[in-house]
């Protein structure tokens, strides 16, 4: 378990650092790249939680598709190279206050509630096949709803982005 704790520590450090840099950096492309780091780190955390399918999906969908889409969008909206533009609004102190307040209350309740609950060790590990079974039996209707949602999003995006 030690190795996993060390891995968790290193990855979380990277993730939190990247997340902070993502919301503070003045360069939008850098911001996106930091988000990539966050997502990759989270993928690692999923592996620690024995959710390899979610981890792989995270890489494929988020890093492989969503982030590329973001970079695409950034480049299409002519992101300049360099730190010329101010990226943070004037009201950032309020935002920081709200975020800190929210963070404080969530952290307090988490520690209060779960304290030092250990993750079940040696419990049942669900592999990819189990996830598939569950999706296609219990959650078949949500799954179909998601496919309809994706289709609607596809059409919606095309309609919105068309020139004419």
């Amino acid at each position, binding site marked *: *378990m030690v190795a996993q*704790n060390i891995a*968790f520590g290193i990855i*979380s450090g990277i*993730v*939190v650092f990247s*997340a902070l840099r*993502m*919301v503070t950096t003045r360069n*939008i492309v850098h*911001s*996106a790249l930091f*988000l990539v780091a*966050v*997502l990759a780190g*989270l993928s690692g*955390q*999923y592996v*620690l*939680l024995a*959710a390899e*399918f979610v981890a792989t*999906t995270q890489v494929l*969908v*988020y890093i492989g598709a*969503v982030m590329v*889409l*973001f970079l*695409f969008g*950034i480049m*299409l909206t002519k992101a300049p190279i360099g730190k010329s533009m101010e990226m*943070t*609004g004037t009201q*950032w102190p309020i*935002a*920081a206050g709200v975020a800190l307040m*929210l*963070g404080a209350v*969530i*952290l307090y309740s*988490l*520690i209060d509630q*779960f*304290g030092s*609950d*250990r*993750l*079940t060790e040696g419990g049942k590990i*669900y592999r990819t096949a*189990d*996830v598939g079974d*569950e999706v296609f039996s219990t*959650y078949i209707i949500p799954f179909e709803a*998601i496919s309809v949602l*994706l289709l609607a*999003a596809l059409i919606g*995006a*095309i309609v*919105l*982005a068309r020139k004419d």
Partner: protein
Amino acid sequence: MLLNQFLILGAVLFCIGVYGVLARKNAVMVLMSIELMLNAVNINMVAFGFQHEVVSGQVFALFIIAVAAAEVGVGLAIVLLLYRNQTSIDVEDFDLMKG
């Protein structure tokens, strides 16, 4: 490993995401911060699923990823439309609903 490790990581990321949504001027960055928040939720899902030995946690994480992908598609399309109409994606420029 403690359950709280993951939950706290999720909480911290969520709050950073909230900050990003509230403080960043660029619409694309706001969208990215929303992605961060969704991911923070995801790690909670998977962690709780692991803790309670149910597979639903992973399933819902997958659903959230799918929904997030759809959201990015539509969100970016809207941003592109804004950029085309206003040649700006600064969210502070969009205050037509000012009271």
